[in-house]
């Protein structure tokens, strides 16, 4: 098994875990965390696909992964604020 396959297996496992969590977990916070796990899986897939045998990795997927992480952070932050907002509106 190449390093790419190993990394891809882990990435897809994360992706699947997050996917299941998104569908099956009820609490909004858990859904958001599941989404984070899922997005980590997708980003790790990029990292896995950057692997090259006997050569330095392809820098483009790495750059994409960094961009993806930042986008995921921003989305998560907005999600957290929204969860707080919903909670506050409900408690009022």
């Amino acid at each position, binding site marked *: 098994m190449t390093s790419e396959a190993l990394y891809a297996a882990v990435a897809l496992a994360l*992706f699947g875990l*997050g*996917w299941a969590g*998104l569908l099956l977990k009820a609490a*909004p916070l858990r*859904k*958001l965390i599941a*989404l984070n796990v*899922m*997005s980590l*899986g*997708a*980003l790790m*897939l*990029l990292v896995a*696909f950057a692997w090259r045998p006997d050569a330095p990795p392809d820098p*483009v*997927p790495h750059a*994409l992964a960094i*961009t*993806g992480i930042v*986008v995921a952070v*921003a*989305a998560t932050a*907005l*999600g957290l604020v*929204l*969860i707080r*907002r*919903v909670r506050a*509106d*409900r408690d*009022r």
Partner: protein
Amino acid sequence: MVSPDAALAALFVLPLTGALAAFAAPRAAAALAIGVSWANAALVGGLYGMVGARIALGGHAAPLGVALRLDGLAWPFLALAGALFAFAASATAGRALLAKPGAAALWLTLLAGLNALFVSADAFNLYITLEVVSLAAVALTALGGPAAGAPALRYLFVSLGGSIFYLAGVAFFYRATGALDIGLIGAAGLSGPALAAPLALTTLGLLLKAGAAPFHFWLPPAHAAAAPAASALLSGVVVKAALYVLIRLWTDAAPPEALDAAAPVFRVLGLAALGVGALGAFRATRLKALIAFSTVAQIGYAPLALGFAAGSPLAVQALVAFMAAHGLAKGAIFLAADGLRRANGHDALDSLADPGSRLGPTKGAIGLGVVALMGLPPSGGFLAKWTLAEAATAQGHWWMAPLLAGAAVLTGVYMLRLVSALVRAPACADGDAPRGWSALALAVAAVALGFSGPMLSALMLAEAAP
């Protein structure tokens, strides 16, 4: 003469700058949003002469850099967004929304994201623009009030989930082709698992984001709960962003054989949407829920048309006409619904009444909007329906003609629930209800799209040219 580089860059530089300014200076924000929306509309109008342009951002050509291209498919969507943002911003409902803290900056960010999305030629860049659009749209939805929070949250989850599927698909595309440019991905001529994995992932993600049946469960609550002007944008153009990327992928990145093979799937999805949306609209009790379910039904035309698009530019042309007509008409109806609701003081569908003669433009907007949604001639909807029926019949699927006509009948029947309000005994009108000129302008545009046939054909030809 402005260079294409400058003009295309202006598509996102202008609204993004406006958004930052609106954020930094909240007092001028609303005026900025209206001004920039109109400036953007003018810019898009000017870009019509540049259709066919393709630029390499930063001077780096495709495999390495990100390309923008303004072709015959992109321009109508840009124009739709431009018109909707301009008229919705000027409408009373739009000014009410823009007066809320942060709304103006979100409004302009959404515009920037949509513009960037429609001209992007790069699969990963499309991911980022999709995220800009989704996040801004979710935030705008949540501004609809206390009842909007939960629907907005559900919208966010579905939308983020969809983005992640899309991103995973892009990763697979890159692995199989070493390219991110959609044209280059298509040129690689993928097949087998190397094609199936990314195509299935991206398609699933985009269908989720578009709210296409059977993934529509988030859409009606979100579009019904948002502020009226936001609903106009969400239904009018935001859901189309994901559909647009879907069209791009299947017509440019996937080989024609794949689209041919997947055509039955898309036809089933489209028909399911038409049915499910109509059913929801029949059962809706609130005005905005009816309109939102009608969106579920109407966006079914996109997968349906995609189901006939293999090797048929006619079907793609029909698809564009559908999306443009629906966007304008739906924007008009959401804005007009605001006037109707305020004149009545409530929005319970079965007891709405005539908002009085002062709201003539509102009533006209609803009437013309329904004509366009039903696809009666000479609206853009008719152009689309006829073109699609012709394309389908040419491929031997003559049953599409009665089916499309039947869908129009369904639309007419559930929209009658809205129209019949206009002939009931007049309501005691709220003197402040907006008259609805912006809504009327959009509705007139939706009907006048019937005159755009030659322009659409010309645009599609421009796309075919190298």
